[in-house]
């Protein structure tokens, strides 16, 4: 196979021996496309069962898909994967920016780290030059200090960097890896895995090319797609307000986990304060990464008030949902500050708000006392307290050491029936409200990595696509009718297709926002098939891509089954989400039903050819996906579905 679309090589770095070796991407590309697809198959094959995520023999992989570094709309995403410190199963995270693009231009598609360095190191890649450099002087520095120091040391401000901060160094369970200064591989605690390997950073600069098999056909496909982004109201809205454009929709649909999911809407005065006008005056410009047709990220420069001097990119929808929602912060500028502080220290904002939200609710209910919290009074919305707790988490100081474990483990440590208030899925702190939207909720609950909405929860574009008999043909041959959020009907199939779309986006390197997940006219399976075929020269159909997505999903599922005790019961929402009525807002009085959720799982498992009783993949399923080896592996541990 030629390396069109791909740069052609994988770098394997053994941090114990300092050995750096190179492997052809052809070992993986035919079967797993790229990005998370290849990453997770590497984990499946190489990670010994039942080891700690922080064991030297664990792997940490990074992958930039075959469309990254080209003009394919939205193709600037990159995946990172490892064993998940929250669930002990699969851990994967995805991030947009320049690093993946630069890695491709340096001549590489994937990085595999194994072992543990005796001293802190960072990896420097400049085309054919790949070197481990001493990072002793960088250990202890924040993300922002590290990025500045490496660029200065290497004498090039255009170097792109992945690094960890104190969070990763101190093995905070929800530590993130930050790309340059403000973009996060947030979920699944991969920063701690990187820290456990004494790997402070990875820096890259590339001067080579990404070649295309059929350039004219490829660029025609790009041009056709780009027409859909021109004069699009979706693009206009996202450019004006960023993803927080969705905040009012979340409010209307009871999708904001206010005060740690006690309520599902913001108080009206708090919503008014979060209005975008309040922050627009600090917006310097929108940011778009290479090939991005929707530059929805915004750069802020705060020049007055208590956070004057702060310059940062950020404030995606997650920030107000987490901090104005879960923690009841009422100042939008403070939300920007808290978000940026997490980036600076290398911490996942979903985990931070999950742990602090749990603590604040326990404090509200008298479960936690000042004697538990280092004397700190945990009042909702107190920005100073929140910033102090974040610092204590990053450095694992006092009460912060408990919160650094995430809400599920913190509740185990504290006991006192505090686990009811620990909102998590499979052990990882939960960001998403589940009970207000059954399709979305099923995608979150079934996610192999432990919650999260970006590996299978149907978004607005997906719902519109599924509901439209013409558009639906873009992804499947049976139009789905019901997209009503609190109707169980047709939600399994919506998740079934979204799981596949998300996996293929991540494998190719396409941003979800530029895909049919966001808008039915954006990049979908037919377009990805055309882009992939013309970029790589390997004729690939939509059906091929759907099958490869299913292979990825089942490989993740199998990794979980071989490494954890996760099963059907772990695909139910947390107790509060399942049992409590919605207290206020448009869905006041609505409640999920356990029996109906069970029937939904039956339908979803059956669609996937998984065992209804356990959720385990069947041999037939795995055989159809050419994963016989996986079936044999599962059979050996009695986890093959029937």
């Amino acid at each position, binding site marked *: 196979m030629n390396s069109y679309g791909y740069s052609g090589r994988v770098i394997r770095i053994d941090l114990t021996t300092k050995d750096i070796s190179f492997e052809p991407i052809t070992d993986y590309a035919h079967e797993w496309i790229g990005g998370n697809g290849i990453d997770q198959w590497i984990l499946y094959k190489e990670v010994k069962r039942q080891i700690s995520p922080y064991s030297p023999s664990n792997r940490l992989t990074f992958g930039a898909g075959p469309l990254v570094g080209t*003009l394919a709309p939205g193709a600037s995403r990159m995946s990172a994967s490892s064993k998940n410190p929250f669930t002990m199963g699969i851990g994967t995270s995805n991030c947009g920016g320049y690093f993946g693009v630069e890695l491709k*231009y340096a001549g590489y598609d994937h990085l595999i780290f194994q072992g543990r360095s005796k001293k802190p190191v960072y990896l420097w890649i400049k085309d054919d030059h790949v070197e481990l450099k001493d990072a002793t002087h960088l250990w202890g520095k924040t993300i922002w200090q590290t990025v500045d120091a490496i660029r200065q040391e290497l004498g090039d401000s255009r170097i792109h960097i992945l690094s960890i901060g104190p969070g990763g160094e101190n093995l905070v369970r929800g530590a993130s890896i930050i790309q340059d200064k403000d973009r996060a591989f947030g979920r699944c605690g991969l920063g701690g895995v990187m820290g456990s390997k004494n790997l402070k950073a990875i820096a890259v600069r590339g001067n080579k*090319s990404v070649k295309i098999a059929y350039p004219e056909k490829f660029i025609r496909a790009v041009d056709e797609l780009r027409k859909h982004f021109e004069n699009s109201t979706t693009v206009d809205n996202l450019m004006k307000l960023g993803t927080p454009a969705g905040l009012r929709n979340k409010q209307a649909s009871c999708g904001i986990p206010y005060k740690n999911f006690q309520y599902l809407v913001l108080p009206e005065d708090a919503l008014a304060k979060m209005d975008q006008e309040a922050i627009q005056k600090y917006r310097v410009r929108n940011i778009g990464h290479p090939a991005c047709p929707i530059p929805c990220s915004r750069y802020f*420069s705060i020049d007055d008030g208590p956070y004057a001097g702060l310059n940062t990119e950020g404030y995606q929808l997650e920030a107000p949902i987490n901090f104005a929602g879960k923690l009841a912060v009422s100042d939008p500028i403070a939300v920007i500050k808290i978000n940026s502080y997490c980036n600076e220290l290398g911490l996942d904002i979903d985990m931070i708000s999950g742990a602090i939200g749990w603590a604040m609710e326990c404090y509200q209910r008298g479960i936690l006392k000042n004697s538990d919290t280092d004397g700190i009074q945990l009042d909702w919305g107190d920005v100073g307290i929140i910033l102090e707790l974040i610092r204590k988490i990053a450095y694992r100081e006092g009460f912060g050491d408990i919160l650094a474990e995430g809400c599920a483990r913190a509740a185990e440590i504290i006991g006192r029936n505090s686990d009811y208030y620990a909102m998590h899925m499979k052990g990882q702190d939960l960001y998403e409200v589940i009970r207000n939207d059954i399709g979305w909720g099923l995608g979150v609950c079934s996610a192999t990595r432990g919650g999260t909405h970006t590996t299978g929860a149907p978004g607005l574009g997906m719902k519109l696509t599924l509901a439209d008999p013409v558009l639906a043909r873009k992804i499947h041959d049976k139009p789905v009718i019901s997209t009503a959020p609190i109707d169980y009907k047709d939600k399994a199939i919506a998740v079934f297709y979204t799981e596949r779309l998300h996996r293929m986006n991540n494998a190719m390197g396409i941003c979800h926002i530029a895909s049919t997940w966001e808008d039915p006219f954006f990049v979908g399976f037919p377009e990805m098939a055309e882009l992939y075929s013309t970029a790589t020269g390997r004729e690939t159909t939509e059906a091929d891509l759907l099958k490869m997505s299913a292979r990825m999903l089942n490989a993740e599922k199998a990794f979980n089954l071989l490494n954890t005790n996760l099963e059907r019961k772990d695909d139910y929402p947390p107790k509060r989400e399942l049992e409590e009525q919605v207290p206020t807002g448009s869905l006041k009085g609505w409640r999920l039903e356990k029996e109906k959720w069970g029937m939904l799982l039956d339908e979803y498992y059956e669609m996937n050819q998984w065992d209804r009783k356990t959720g385990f993949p069947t041999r037939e399923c795995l055989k159809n996906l050419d994963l016989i080896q996986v079936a044999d592996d599962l059979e050996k541990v009695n986890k093959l579905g029937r």
Partner: protein
Amino acid sequence: MACSYHHKKAFQPSIASIEVGEIENKSHLGITFYLRNEGIHLACDQCIGENQPLCIKYCNAVGRDELRDIWSKCFRTNATK
């Protein structure tokens, strides 16, 4: 990226006739056009043979107008770099 496609039918920003950076806390784009071959950068031929300059065509909506203005000024005054 688009510029290198014009020159080589491949994606290789390092040879491009245009370099885009961000200056003053990302408040403005810093743009350099190479009008002569320099290092591995190829001289800008103003996208000869294309319907419009590809750097402008494929620039995202935020920077496109700014880039078009700079492009026009640069080539109207025939600046060298």
